[in-house]
């Protein structure tokens, strides 16, 4: 019974995740976008050092002229699970560097890999990218709680993007989407080495001559496997037993040492 409720909740959260983006209203376009990935679940072993995920897609009902002129552009993003993130700023207080100001952004993806036919800044106007939240620079970063007069909002946003890009969990590849035939395309997005566990969403967007046409989303579960993952799961799911196990390990090690090296 509980398992069933859990699955229902999972399905619901999957559905809401996929339905989440508020997209610009598509106009009277005939084009449709279809994408596919070979699996909806990726098992990552403990020696994982990052990999590329290939996504195939096709434009249906395309206009041959526009295609020939290369005016169709595609953006594919792999968004990691969302969580609140706090940015803290250090300042010198009495000669010591101390975290003084902080800002928390609401439900930002833990990882984000973007791949496109060309630099997304040249695909559509900045305003459209902002409203759809496509790309690291346009991602919605909504602060929560008291932020004062908001004068340092952009400073904290920039710091957040910089930190995530430097650590490699936010990536962009402005040549990662390639047409393999007239309307068939292949996109490769990067899974970073420390790709977070959980439900990721592959989102694909089709633009025609700078206008947003269609979007498609698919869920992708990332499951880490191996001994390290089992340890992490134990530490978070049965922390008390895990603590006892850690102590037992220490007791046995200490006791063995005193037996092995006994000199009196």
């Amino acid at each position, binding site marked *: 019974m509980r398992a069933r409720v859990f699955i229902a909740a999972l399905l619901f959260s999957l559905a809401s995740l996929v339905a989440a983006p508020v997209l610009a209203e598509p106009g009277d376009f005939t084009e449709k976008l279809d994408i596919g990935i070979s699996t909806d679940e990726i098992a990552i072993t*403990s*020696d994982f050092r990052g990999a590329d995920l290939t996504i195939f897609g096709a434009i249906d009902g395309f206009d041959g002229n526009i295609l020939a002129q290369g005016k169709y552009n595609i953006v594919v993003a792999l968004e990691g699970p969302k*969580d*609140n*993130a*706090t*940015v*803290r*700023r*250090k*300042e*010198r207080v009495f*000669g*010591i*560097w*101390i*975290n003084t100001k*902080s800002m*928390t952004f609401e439900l930002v993806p*833990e990882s984000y890999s973007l791949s496109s036919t060309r630099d997304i800044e040249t695909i559509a106007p900045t305003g459209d990218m902002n409203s759809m939240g496509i790309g690291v620079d346009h991602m919605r970063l909504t602060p929560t709680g008291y932020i004062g007069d908001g004068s340092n909002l952009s400073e*904290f946003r920039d*710091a*957040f993007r*910089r*930190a*995530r890009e430097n650590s490699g969990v936010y990536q962009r590849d402005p040549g990662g989407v390639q047409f393999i035939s007239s309307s068939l395309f292949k996109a490769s997005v990067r899974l970073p080495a*420390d790709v977070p566990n959980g439900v990721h969403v592959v989102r694909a967007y089709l633009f025609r001559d700078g206008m947003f046409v269609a979007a498609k989303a698919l869920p992708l579960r990332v499951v880490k496997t191996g001994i*390290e*993952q089992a*340890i*992490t799961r134990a*530490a*978070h799911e049965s*922390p*008390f037993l*895990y*603590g*006892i*196990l*850690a*102590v037992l*390990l*220490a*007791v046995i*090690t*200490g*006791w*063995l*040492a*005193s037996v092995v*090296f006994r000199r*009196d």
Partner: protein
Amino acid sequence: MTVYLPIAELSVNIFIILGMGAAVGFLSGMFGVGGGFLITPLLIFYNIPPVVAVATGANQVVASSISGAITHFRRGTIDIKLGTVLLCGGLAGATVGVWIFSFLRRVGQLDLVISLMYVLLLGTVGTLMLVESISALRKASKNQVGTLRRPGQHNWVHRLPLKMRFKKSKIYLSVIPVVALGFGIGILTSVMGVGGGFIMVPAMIYLLRIPTNVVIGTSLFQIIFVSAYTVIVQASTNYSVDIVLAFVLMIAGVIGAQYGVRVGQRLRGEQLRALLALLVLAVGLRLAVELVIPPKEIYTVVSAGLGF
């Protein structure tokens, strides 16, 4: 060869961790200290998140104090009754300490407070030890017999109420300072990941006037339980005990300690204390420098779920 630490969430070179554990184990065997106050800062220098370093340090302390306490138990140099009274204070202190720890982590000041406390503690203890050992070395070179202050004289501690008789230690002492001492060390154990022996032992000798022969065994006895309790509580509230890291450290540590003991027996007491004092000061200084130099990036990002 690298090994992935699941809780710290980073890959480390196993030989560096083994070397660290062995070196600290060697020093702890040589000087007769637990080594928690060295292992935690070393882990922080090696980029292990302080949250994980503290909780894992406490786990390593359990292993090193167990093997020490077993030796003392065989020799009969543990005052179980005194240790239990200390332990009552210690468990209460560790509970408060974990609460402080979680609070500091929530407001983003944990790393700072850990570093500051280490600088303060290592600086004070290192300086006191250095001054004491240098004056002892001077006296020894003048061929004078060093006069260690004899326990036995009474001070204000012995005028407190709620007295209890501790047969093994052959003292009649108020439980208030004993519980208070345990409480204070308990806080340090959970906030800093130290056993606290290097504060407890001098406090027991000079403040409580407990006979030297039972002091080390008794302090080890209570450190086992307080640090074990801290590990369990840290694991339950902060999920920050890295069992892989702890295991590598304790294996290397207990082996290193055996060789440390052998070397320690060949050196003279005041030389040993002067060396330890210099080491303690060096670690404290390194942490102090870290606090003062401008960081490369003044912004840090923490995610709510992961926490570090």
